[in-house]
């Protein structure tokens, strides 16, 4: 079969020492980058981009792609252990993963995260191989109105992210939307809310905010609680998920993989949104939704699978049409362009060895990552035993270095610290940070899509209802909102008892 022939071609190219080594280095660096808070795959790839110029195009892409999905594996580590997202897509893993760690189940959390990521990654590569061209064509049909309706739907899932009061969740979302408007308007160019500060012209920055809210905020809270803070259960029960964990996780992993892949295909979608969406989906489908936020393994398995599947999906528009679907894909495209390789609709035909070489390297990379990450779980879990007074200065140090490494801007540090204080206050008064982060991510996307749609329709709001895909998403969004208020559609009360 043609596919088999292509795969053998790919593997034969891959199994050269240079490419194998490149794959290993890529995923290793990716894991490290993912574990270190702040330094995300985008920053790492841009830092390492020049070093790949001397390599062949295939070797270069193998390294960079390895960093990308490797970071998705590593990002969950610090989320679970110390409630600091290693990179933005792992924010959601903090919600239940950290709670699992506090209950002495860090090992199973890390384990299911690694296995889920592997299954999802492999799934997304297979899907990429088999379904890339038709998926890409479908993605073309997504214009601004479809994006708006989809992102609006995404905003609606906020109600599923919070374990507390819905009103508070929506307040945080509103704050997130506002924060997303800071900076230069992308439609007209006007500078908004930047107080004439050049550094705010590009907005407030997702990474400093996330690290402040979740990382610094948690540290501050823990320092305050240090008298009464319970020590992590030092008896770590198992290092690997047991059969019951697997039974609970297998469906979330499958669902997360599919959802993550589809959302990753959409330009502008990406790992963050798919992890949030997966979390919301699991919570909605669960029999005990009120337990989410207290250490449900489904809340780790689903999102972690989704963000890995999204990385595979993100390759689809680039490799089939030459359209980068997010900033990291744009960097990879830049790397190819420098070598004179222009990804476009004929990429597979013009550069079959490049295409299949990359695909097979992704298989190998995922397998390498699983092998790398599992034994490390024992090591990571030992970190938890370090007494907190020694641990938290290190955490803060890593956060400071990590956030500065993004842009070499001191203002990023200020942002992180300010949001750290805010995060501390939020945790004290029981406001959730997750809706804020989701809204911050979605805010520019929703706004741009909305305004472009209105530009397209010369101001008519009907455009959202006149196009079938957009109408579909709007319908689901409205249904979700209503289902919170109509009792017989509700599966759970809107306000759940606090922990």
């Amino acid at each position, binding site marked *: 079969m043609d596919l088999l022939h292509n795969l053998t071609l790919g593997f034969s190219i891959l199994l050269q020492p240079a490419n194998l080594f490149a794959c290993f280095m890529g995923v290793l660096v990716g894991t490290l980058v993912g574990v270190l808070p702040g330094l995300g795959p985008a920053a790492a790839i841009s830092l390492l981009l020049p070093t790949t110029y001397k390599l062949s195009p295939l070797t270069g892409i193998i390294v960079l792609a390895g960093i990308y999905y490797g970071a998705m594996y590593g990002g969950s580590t610090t989320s679970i252990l110390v409630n600091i997202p290693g990179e933005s897509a792992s924010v959601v893993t903090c919600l239940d993963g950290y709670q699992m760690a506090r209950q002495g189940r860090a090992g199973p959390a890390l384990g299911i995260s690694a296995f889920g990521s592997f299954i999802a990654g492999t799934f997304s590569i297979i899907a990429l191989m088999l379904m890339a061209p038709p998926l890409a064509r479908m993605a073309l049909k997504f214009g601004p109105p479809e994006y708006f309706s989809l992102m609006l739907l995404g905003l609606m899932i906020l109600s599923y992210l919070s374990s507390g009061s819905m009103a508070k969740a929506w307040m945080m979302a509103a704050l997130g939307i506002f924060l997303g408007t800071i900076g230069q308007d992308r439609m007209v*160019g006007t500078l908004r809310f930047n107080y004439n500060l050049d550094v705010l012209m*590009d907005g407030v920055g997702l990474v400093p905010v996330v690290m402040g809210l979740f990382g610094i905020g948690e540290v501050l809270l823990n320092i305050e609680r240090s008298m009464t803070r319970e020590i992590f259960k030092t008896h770590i029960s198992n290092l690997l998920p047991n059969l019951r964990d697997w039974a609970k996780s297998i469906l979330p992993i499958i669902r997360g993989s599919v959802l993550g892949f589809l959302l990753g295909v959409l330009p502008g979608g990406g790992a963050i949104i798919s992890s949030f969406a997966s979390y919301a989906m699991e919570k909605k489908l669960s029999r005990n939704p009120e337990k989410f936020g207290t250490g449900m393994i489904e809340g780790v398995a689903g999102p972690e699978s989704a963000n890995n599947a999204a990385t595979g999906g993100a390759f689809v528009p680039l490799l089939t049409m030459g359209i980068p679907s997010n900033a990291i894909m744009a*960097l990879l495209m830049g790397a190819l362009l420098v070598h004179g390789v222009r990804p476009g609709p004929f990429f597979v035909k013009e550069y079959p060895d490049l295409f299949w070489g990359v695909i097979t390297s992704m298989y190998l990379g995922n397998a390498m990552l699983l092998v790398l990450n599992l034994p490390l779980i024992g090591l990571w879990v030992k970190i938890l035993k370090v007494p907190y007074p020694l641990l938290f200065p290190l955490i803060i140090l890593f956060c400071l270095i990590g956030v500065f490494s993004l842009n070499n801007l001191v203002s990023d540090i200020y942002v992180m610290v300010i949001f750290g204080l805010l995060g501390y206050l939020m945790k004290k008064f029981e406001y959730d940070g997750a809706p804020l982060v989701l809204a911050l991510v979605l805010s520019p996307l929703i706004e741009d899509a909305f305004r472009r749609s209105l530009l397209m329709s010369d101001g008519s709001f009907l455009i959202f209802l006149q196009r079938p895909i957009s109408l579909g998403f709007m319908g689901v969004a409205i249904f979700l909102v209503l289902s919170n208020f109509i009792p017989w559609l509700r599966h759970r009360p809107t306000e759940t008892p606090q922990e």
Partner: protein
Amino acid sequence: MESRKKFKTFCFLAFSCILFLSWGDRSTQAAEKDYPNKSITLINPYAPGGGIDIAYRPIIDILPDYLGQKIVISHKPGATGSIGTAFAAKAKPDGYTLLAGSTSHVNLAPATRKVPYTPGDFVSVGTFAKAIDALAVRPDAPWKTLQEFVADAKKNPGKYKFSTFGVMGAAHFCMELFDRAAGIKAGHIPYNSDSEALTAAIGGHTDVVVATVQAAIPHLSSGALRALAVSDTVRYKYLPDVPTFKELGYDVRVIIWFGMLAPKGTPREIIDKLWSAQKKGFEENKLPAIIERIGMIPFLRPPEEMDKIIREDHELYTKAAKEFGFEIK
């Protein structure tokens, strides 16, 4: 013991003096003669992986062979290019800090908003490449030539929409200049990258797209889009059937030039050295080969001519910005 202590003190003082003197002023009066004697920093005012990184690849790869020193890119992103550009404008004019210059941060930014520099703060060391814009439509669009589009647009003012990368960028200027020259009115839909703007046109969400030729070429070759005009003064080598705006009678010329800039006051000898290195690179066909491979157009212009072009473009864009109301508040 006393004398031993004195001896140690003396040694320490002597050593410090020697250290201090040797660290002292690396004599500058000979600096121009043996320029460059250390690596040159090229300021890139955008984040890594962007268009400037790609465009300056030929310089980074080839020029060190002629200069004898490495060229290192330093990224200083922020405020769409102004932070890095302002930094480069204030750098010491000794030829060791140069700006990776291009139209958008040197010409367009000062024309559309207040930035802490003007093109006059820089002096060109010569230009090596350019990029141009193409106006493209879908293959199933009812217009086979630009004139047909103009005729249709005149009958339906505001009906047709064009997508570009960014607002008040080169492509937007290009389209506005064309609109004025043709006497039509079209709606503008900004996107966040050339790729997105092209995708929107391919997917049918806008009618026209104006994007850089090298971003559009894969889609033009595959037939997903059809180019109606290019924004240069001569036809593009790889699109020989596509006329220029000027050919068709519309006074539109938008080129995105790429050339290094030095802070004003840099000595003439240094500028000449940098320029002759680029000239040699072209004579031996090293530079043009790479420039074409990455999809740009080789475009060699000496410093004096480039200074003139930058000044003229600055006036052109400032005037156009006022006329179109392009102003970032």
